[in-house]
Every structure is written in structure tokens, then in C-alpha cells.
């Protein structure tokens, strides 16, 4: 999430820059750079970061086309072409992996994505600042817990033998339900845990967008006799729409990344059927089974799909709402 916020931030920065460039159209590129040299110097660390940590590792993707053996090394391993990608088509395991990945991702887009937006809008309407701050702090806290701890909490709540929830169900005369080991409940549990953990933290970017709305718009709306709901409909919501669109586009680009840790920690053999996703399978394949080539092929496959979706969604968004990433 953190990365997305920062990426979104850098996207917002680019806009004023490109506007300025257009205004000063008569300057050549070098003159332009010279004039704004401070900004470009500040950009250098970012370039270094992306080259070292994002571009150089891309070269390693070549092992997706090799039968990589750790003892023979990067160069000497045998070249096998598209063997690993072909395996993805022929192995029936992948159908269920892709289905699970997409379904959990869909759940996240439908339920997890709007949650912080709604929460941010609600917080925005709170008048008592003390109360607002207090609520925000409490909501931020789960973000700092590790997934292992979140699982521990979920276990304490949902366990059949000692869980709070099942205690209540049984107290009310119902039958205990094993939330953690039922394929039917798995996706809901994982996605809900994700919402609980990240919802508060994700409000930050929307609260920033909300605070960026010009107060005079609200004044004007008030003078026109708009109530709170009308103000929300006509001022608040359009005000944060660009931020929502950008984050949604980014999310769509990451549709194959549903959060490895989040799923892995809840996964057990009884829930593989509904919960095994590409990432958890790649982890078991790569780390536990030493199949580094296959794992890389999965990663590459994911990136290509993410890239296609991102470009596609961006095009659609540009033509329908006018908002786009680039």
C-alpha cells in the first residue's frame, strides 16, 4: 500500500511539471533541465533506486527460460525456452490457482478498496477534532501488526474450541462453525482480516485528497442552500474522484498480487482448494522445492498480465472519465 501511495504522489507531482513545460515551450530540453536543476538533482536518488532495485533484477528473469540449477549457476544452466510456460497450460493445478487469485482480487476490489474511501469520508464529516484524531489513531494501529499477529488474533476470535465468536454462537444455542478451516469461509475471512488491518491506514491518502478540496467550494455550496449530503455529492466526491481513479488503476495493474503473506498465513491444506494463489504456490515451488525457474516464470506471467490490464484500464479510464495515470 505504501508504495502505491508514493507512486500516486509522484504521479501528482508530474502534472504541474508537464504544465510548466508546455508554458515554456520555447526552451530546449537542456535549457529546461538547467533551469530546474534542483528538481532534477532531487530526482537522482529515485532513478538510482529504480535502476538498482527494479531494472537490474529484471535481467534475472532470464532464468524463466532456463532450467536453473543453483549449483551450476546463472550462465551455465540449460536453456529450455518456453517449457515452464507450457507447463502452466498443461498442469491442471494452474486453473485453480488463477481462479483463486482472481476471485480473491475481485473480493478485494469490491470490498477492500471502497472501505477506506467510505471511512475517510465519514471521518471528514466528524466535527470534534479530538474525537477524530483518537479514532484515526485507533484505526491506524492494526497496520503496524504483523500478519502472524493478525492470524493469532483471528485464531483467538474464531477457533472452534476457544474462540470468542464460536463461544457466542454456542451460547446463543447455535452450532460452532470452523471459520479457519472451512473452504466456504476462507476468502471472506482473509479479505475481512485485510480490511481490518489496512482500512485505517489506507484512509491517509484519501484524507489528504479531501483536505485538498478548496473550502470556498463548500462555502459556495452552503450559500446555494446545499445540505451535508448535497455537499458530499457535489463537492466532496468529485474532489476525491481523481485520487480514487488513480488508486483503482494501480490496483487493477496489481490484480494478480493479492498479498502473499495475508493468504499464506491463513492457508492450510483443507483450504488449498479455495485459497491457494499464484504467490503461495510460487513460494512453495521456489523456496521449498527449489524450482527457481518455474517460480520466475510465474512471476513473469503475472507481470505481463498486470501490465496488459493496467494499460487497458488506463485507456478505458482516459476515454470515459478523462482521468489517467499518464
Amino acid at each position, binding site marked *: 500500500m505504501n508504495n502505491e501511495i508514493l507512486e500516486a*504522489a509522484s504521479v501528482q507531482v508530474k502534472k504541474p511539471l508537464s504544465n510548466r513545460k508546455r508554458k515554456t515551450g520555447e526552451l530546449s530540453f537542456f535549457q529546461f533541465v538547467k533551469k530546474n536543476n534542483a528538481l532534477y538533482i*532531487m530526482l537522482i*536518488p529515485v532513478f538510482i533506486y529504480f535502476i538498482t532495485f527494479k531494472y537490474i533484477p529484471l535481467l534475472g528473469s532470464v532464468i524463466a527460460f532456463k532450467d536453473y540449477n543453483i549449483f551450476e549457476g546463472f550462465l551455465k544452466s540449460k536453456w529450455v525456452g518456453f517449457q515452464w510456460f507450457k507447463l502452466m497450460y498443461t498442469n491442471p493445478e494452474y486453473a485453480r490457482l488463477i481462479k483463486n487469485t482472481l476471485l480473491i482480487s475481485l473480493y478485494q476490489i469490491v470490498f477492500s478498496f471502497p472501505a477506506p474511501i467510505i471511512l475517510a469520508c465519514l471521518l471528514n464529516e466528524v466535527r470534534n477534532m479530538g474525537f477524530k484524531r483518537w479514532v484515526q489513531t485507533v484505526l491506524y494501529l492494526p497496520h503496524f501488526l504483523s500478519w502472524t499477529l493478525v492470524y493469532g488474533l483471528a485464531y483467538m476470535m474464531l477457533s*472452534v474450541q476457544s474462540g470468542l465468536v464460536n463461544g457466542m454462537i454456542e451460547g446463543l444455542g447455535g452450532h460452532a462453525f470452523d471459520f479457519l478451516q472451512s473452504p466456504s469461509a476462507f476468502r471472506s475471512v482473509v479479505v475481512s482480516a485485510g480490511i481490518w488491518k489496512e482500512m485505517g491506514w489506507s484512509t491517509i491518502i484519501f484524507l*489528504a485528497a479531501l483536505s485538498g478540496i478548496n473550502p470556498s467550494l463548500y462555502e459556495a455550496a452552503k450559500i446555494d442552500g446545499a445540505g451535508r449530503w448535497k455537499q458530499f455529492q457535489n463537492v466532496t466526491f468529485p474532489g476525491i474522484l481523481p485520487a480514487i481513479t488513480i488508486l483503482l488503476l494501480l490496483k487493477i495493474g496489481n490484480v494478480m498480487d493479492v498479498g502473499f503473506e495475508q493468504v499464506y498465513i491463513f492457508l492450510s491444506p483443507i483450504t488449498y482448494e479455495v485459497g491457494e494463489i499464484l504467490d503461495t504456490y510460487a513460494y512453495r*515451488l521456489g523456496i521449498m522445492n527449489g524450482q527457481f525457474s518455474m517460480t520466475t516464470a510465474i512471476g513473469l506471467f503475472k507481470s505481463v498480465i498486470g501490465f496488459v490490464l493496467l494499460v487497458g484500464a488506463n485507456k478505458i479510464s482516459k476515454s470515459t472519465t478523462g482521468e489517467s495515470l499518464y
Partner: protein
Amino acid sequence: MNASKKWVSVALAVTMAGALAACGNNNTNNAKTESSASPAANADATEAPKAPVKISLLTTDNSQPVPGGNAMDDPTIKYLAEKTNTILDITFLPAAQADNLKKVKFASGELPDVISDYGVNGDLYANNQLIPLNDYIDKYGPNLKKVIPQAAWDGVTRDGKIYAIPESAAGDSKVNRMFFVRKDWMDKVGITETPKTPDELLTMLRAFRDKDPNGNGKKDEIPLSGRENFTWLDTILGMFGANEYGATVINGEVVPSNTSPQMKQALTFLKQLYDEKLLDSEFMSNKRNTWEQKIQNDQVGLWVHDPNLGWDWQDKLNKALPGKGAIVEPMISPKAPGVQYAGFGISAYNKTFSVTKKAKDPEAIVKFFDWLVTEEGQEFVTFGIPDVTYTKDSAGKITYNQQKDTDDKTALWRTITFNLAGWNPDLKKVQVGDEAVAKLEEFFTVGKQEGQPNILLGAPTFKSSLPEIGEFAVPGTMFIETAAKIVMGDQPVDYFDEYVKNWRSRGGDDLIKQATEWYNANGKK
């Protein structure tokens, strides 16, 4: 818009700080590895005949507190290094992820000189990274040859070459997993005879469930418990001649026990236990600590564990349930009709140490392990450093300061990491007391009477590239998933046949072929 601009610049500053910090970290790491590499180079360069040899050892922490930081700063390791004329560089991996972390280490090119494992590491063996030790052991390991029985060596020999130094099984127990039963529960519910068949075991477990053996008036007993990923139910499977880690011959083919009719029978039985609430309803999610907690809460009547921990469990329950009179006893496996060998798979060794091709001086390494099984070495393993945690008078009588050894947090990891000699009752009695040794011997006696022979003893690893298939005769996720579904009633028992068909067609057939070929050439007796 002002506020949002301000926020954006803060965000940018954060990214940059992050990027800078990342670069900074990298540099210091590089510097560190370089500086730690140079003393090694120096040590090699001096080449004085008696200069200590540098040995790197990769092992696990066995879930015990282990010394952190530089190994040579630890007094125990320092003493051991001085005694064996070595410089030791020991890395302890967290036991729960040790297998994965090892693979990560190999992948990043960090191969140690010596690696601790349970058997000959399949990856390293297949890639020809291990040194055969026969000659070195003949020349420099006289004590190793004396102390470690032939059966243990057999398990780590491939094509006549020894690829590891094995720790012999404690007390000559043939199995390292067996039934632990609460004898006091049995007495309380009126079970006077140890169950001999699965049916009699059912009767006992039902009595545990219904007759309130823990006497708290609540029906909270868990007659039998197990742990996540379908583990620690081994002797239940064993009653039917099945073994998650074994292979068996059917119609001239060597197939993993995980696909055998015996396993189907065992799963059917487990399903019955689950349906009747005789098996822990959380057996698929219990972590080790939850499982231990349930047993110590006086809730569990029967469980499966390592006979080495026989006294450990008795001691734990004595402390957790004072005055309750809890008695932990080993239980010999009941046998289903027609089953010849019950219990867990026979294994004559526990952990092993293999020497990799990275090692510059295998001779020194074998000498190092040879010292560990000398009398002096065994005393070190059991009691620690002389005049620190134990004293020995002129008559050879040892006085062991257990309190100090425990307080220093040296007792547990030292014994587990370095023990190779198996079982030395004389030293053990001084270490843990007569009562504990008597309890352990009870367990080992049972351990000598059961176990399924390993028909693939000495075979290399047969392995599929798909994780759901995994290694031959090791439970892959496909098996675990199937077993869990059948036991928990998500699929009918006959789903097992479908699983076997799937397993074979997705790569299992190929593994069966390899295993059968090996067996016909080498294993058949």
C-alpha cells in the same frame, strides 16, 4: 491545494530517505562480509601445521535458545574449538523454517563446510556437492566407528560411499515417533489392558471422551491430538501398516505408502475418530505450542511424539499439573488384523552431519566429530565445560551443576546440536537423574519392539518438480490436502482412489518407475 502539495513533498522526502537508507545498508553489509572473509584467507595463508582449521557449520536451533553473534565469543563453542584445534563458525537456522532457509542459502551460493540434516541432503547429493567420507573415517575417525552402529551408517551410505556422520538412535529405539498415553487416565476410566487392535483403541478413546478422566466435570477432553499439516498422527497410520514417509511393494511396483490401500484404511479410521469427536477438531491447525498447551492443560489422553522426550513430557506434566498424579507412558502400537509391521518407519539414526565440497580440510572435520564421541567429548556434550558446569574428581566421579547449566542456557542446545553418541545411560543418569533415565528406558524398550522396515534404505531422493507431487515417499501437499479432506468429511473415502490416479498421472508414475528400478537393482534382499 496547498495542503496536498505539502503532503506530496513529505511523501517524496520519505521515498528518498528510504532509497538512501537502502543504499547505505547495502554498503555496510558488503563491507562486513569482506572483512569477515579476510581473516579466513589469512588463516589459510599461514599454513603452519598446527594452526586451527576454520570450519563453518550450518545447523538448526532445534527451537531452543542458541548463542547469538559471533560463534567464537560463546564460551561453550570456544572451549570446543580449543579442544579440537578449530575455529568454528556456526549458523543456527530457526528450526521451523530451516529447510527453506537452507535452500535460500544454497541458492545464494553460501554453502557451508558442514551441514546438519536428517539423512543425506537430496539436493546436495544429486548435484554432487558432498564428499564421500569412507577414507577419512577409516583414518581419522576410530571413535566414530566404535560408537556409531553399522545400522546408522547404512542409512547414510549411497552406492557404498558414506555421505554423512549420523547420530545413532537413542537407546537403540528403532523408531523415533511413538504413542504417548496418559496411564492415569487409563486407570481412571477402567482400561486395564493396553489396546491391541484399532477397535480396542477406539474403546479406550471413547472412554477418554465420555468418562471425564481429567475430573473437571466438563466434557472438554480431547482423546487424541495432532498437529498442522497432518503431522504427528504417524503411529495411528502405522497401526494399518501405512507410513507417510515410507514406501511399499505392490504388484511388483515400489509405491509410496501415501498411495497404498493401507493408507486408505488408516484414513478411514481417522475419519471415524474425527466424526466421533475422538480426534482433536483442530488437528489440522494446531501449532506446536497450542498442541503442547492442550496436553499440559490436562485435556489430551493420547498423542504421538519422540521417545527421547519421554521424560521431558513427564516432567512438564508434573510441573503443569502438580498433585494430579499424571503418568506419561509409551504405548506399543495396536495392530489391525493382518498387519505385520506397525509403528513408525524404522530409522537407525537421527540427525546427520555431511561435509560439502566447499570444505578445504575434511580431515580436520572428521577429527572434530571424532573428538565429540570420545569419553571427553561425550562428557562435554552431556555436561558442558569442566569446572564450569561440572567437576570430575580424581576417581572419575562427575558432579554436574544442572542449575548452572540451565541458567546459562547452555544445557539444551549444546546436547541437541553436538550429540552423536546416541545413548550413554551412565552419563545420562548423572545428568538428569535415575527417575528420568528409567522413564526414557521404558520408551526405548517399546521403541525396540515396533517399526516398519524401510525398503528404500540408502536410495537417492526421487523428486518431482511439482510441489504438489514433491519427493517420493514424503507427504506432498496433494496427499495432505486429500487426507485432510477425507478425515474432515469434505470428500468421501473413495476420493482417495481419484487422488491416487491423479498423483500418478501428474508425475507420480515416473517416480514409481525410478524407485522400482533402484529397488530391483539394489534394495531387494
